[in-house]
């Protein structure tokens, strides 16, 4: 029940907000979300999470954990058995060796892991280089940690890869860290091992720390995924961030992890223990099950994403929207420049005229102008309808 608030006398609200928080712009996605949420009959390609419900055996493990009364805190680092499974998993799949005792930290998603990593390493004014278009939280997270966000634009003609020359050009004496996200949200770009080698060499040369968000790494459709942390001389200067949301369709469980050398994990853990204490125990129990028995579910979901990607890519090309073939994640990032519309106007027009929601590329940085992000984490029949509606919309332009 909502109590009426009109009777409360309004006084002038004093401003208590910190400058660096006030400076953070509202998320472009947030504004768009409000409009979409108010409309009926919308097919949304704007969703950055799997459409699959978490596989049953993982949900069942969470239920079982509750039945056994697993309702308390865990170690600040996370359940030891989960850290052991994580160490095994990253060893088998990424050729990374971390000690579960002090080199693995269970976090509340990669979001928390990223925040911890930045806060643990940045002194005020330190620069963090990242590639853009990128996930919406990078620049604000850097600013909240009192760092300076330095964006390097990636371009469609380079398949949205981070080019070594572009990275070099962005380096200054204040550069502290490089933030990577391959496969990339929103472009689906990947970096091959040979390309990572070049990036790694620059990081070693300039003594940069690498924070690598590899949340989409299981969803690689072409080449095998390589983690930059596995390259020679990189382990000691890399914080590897990963989680369960995308590969195991566990977004709402809010569980991820960071792997790094012990001094870095220890520093991150000091922030985590006071800010969060520990990731929720039920989610951690579910995560153990995901790593032990979730592989087939993951592979099956990846196969479905791959087919949907093919379908939507084919549809975009047929309607005359050039689109880079994404190698990972579950997004397509078509160019809508030929329509003569801005990303924002395209997204609003498509939504109002054809009830299809896509996210304007500008939500992921200024370099996203001329593009829209279309998620294919949506049922196939819905994708087909959405593609037909989009073709109608594009045909009218």
């Amino acid at each position: 029940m909502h109590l009426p608030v009109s009777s409360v006398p309004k006084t002038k609200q004093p401003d208590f907000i910190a400058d660096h928080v006030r400076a953070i712009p509202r998320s472009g996605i947030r504004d768009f979300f409000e409009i979409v949420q108010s409309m009926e009959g919308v097919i949304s390609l704007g969703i950055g999470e799997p459409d699959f419900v978490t596989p049953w055996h993982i949900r069942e493990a969470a239920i079982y954990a509750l039945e056994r009364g697993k309702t308390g805190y865990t170690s600040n680092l996370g359940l030891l058995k989960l850290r052991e499974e994580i160490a095994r998993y990253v060893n088998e799949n990424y050729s990374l060796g971390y000690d579960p005792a002090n080199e693995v930290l269970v976090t509340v998603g990669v979001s928390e892991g990223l925040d911890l990593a930045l806060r643990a390493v940045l002194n005020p004014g330190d620069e963090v280089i990242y590639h853009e278009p990128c996930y919406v939280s990078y620049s604000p997270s850097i600013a909240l940690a009192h760092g300076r966000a330095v964006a390097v634009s990636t371009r469609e003609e380079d398949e949205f890869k981070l080019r070594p020359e572009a990275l070099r050009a962005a380096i200054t004496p204040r550069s502290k860290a490089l933030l990577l996200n391959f496969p990339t949200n929103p472009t689906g770009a990947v970096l091959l091992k040979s390309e990572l080698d070049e990036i790694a060499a620059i990081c070693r040369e300039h003594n940069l720390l690498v924070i690598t968000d590899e949340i989409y790494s299981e969803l690689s459709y072409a080449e095998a995924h390589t983690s930059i942390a596995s390259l020679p001389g990189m382990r000691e200067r890399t914080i590897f961030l990963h989680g369960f949301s995308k590969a195991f369709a566990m977004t709402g469980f809010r569980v991820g992890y960071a792997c790094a050398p012990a001094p870095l994990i220890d520093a991150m853990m000091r922030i985590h223990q006071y800010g969060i204490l520990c990731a929720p125990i039920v989610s951690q129990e579910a995560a153990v099950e995901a790593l032990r028995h979730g592989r087939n579910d993951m592979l099956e979901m990846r196969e479905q994403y791959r087919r949907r990607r093919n379908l939507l890519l084919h549809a975009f090309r047929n309607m005359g929207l050039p689109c880079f073939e994404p190698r990972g994640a579950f997004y397509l990032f078509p160019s809508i420049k030929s329509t003569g519309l801005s990303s924002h106007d395209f997204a609003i027009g498509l939504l109002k005229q054809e009830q299809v929601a896509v996210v304007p590329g500008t939500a992921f940085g200024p370099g996203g102008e001329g593009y829209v992000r279309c998620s294919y984490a949506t049922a196939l029949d819905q994708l087909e309808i959405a593609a037909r509606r989009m073709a109608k919309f594009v045909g009218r332009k």
Partner: protein
Amino acid sequence: MDEALLNLLEENALSTPESLAAQLNTTPAEIKKRIKQLEKYRVILAYKAIVDDERAKRSSVKAVIEVRVTPEREGGFDRLAHRIAQYREVHSCFLMSGGFDLLVFIEGKTLQEVAGFVSEKLSTLPGVISTATHFNLKTYKQQGVLREAVVNEERLKVSP
């Protein structure tokens, strides 16, 4: 490619050649050709709808029968299994390991019809030693499809 194509058709047999082609990075003509081949060689046996009898307000009686039989010299279980499988009432028929030999899924309009089939047709076949009939009381999942779909109603319509 056939394996991927079969997986897609098993998910939805009504998928159009155009949609299948786009998903598998090939042409609709190629898809049509492959499907024709798969049908011709009886890799694809049939296309059917999976119907919820309760919602269709259709009364039917379903049962599973464990059948023990005497295998024949030359032919083993096959000849008798074929004889059983051909009855219209039999929906599926499998040879099993364990305490019985054949597992027979049958369906009829009434209890009498199913009971009559078991007592008059199945049990009297030469070679059938015994039958144990289990009636279906309620269906929760059939052919891989849950009766009650699990959907996340609260999924956000736009998220980063």
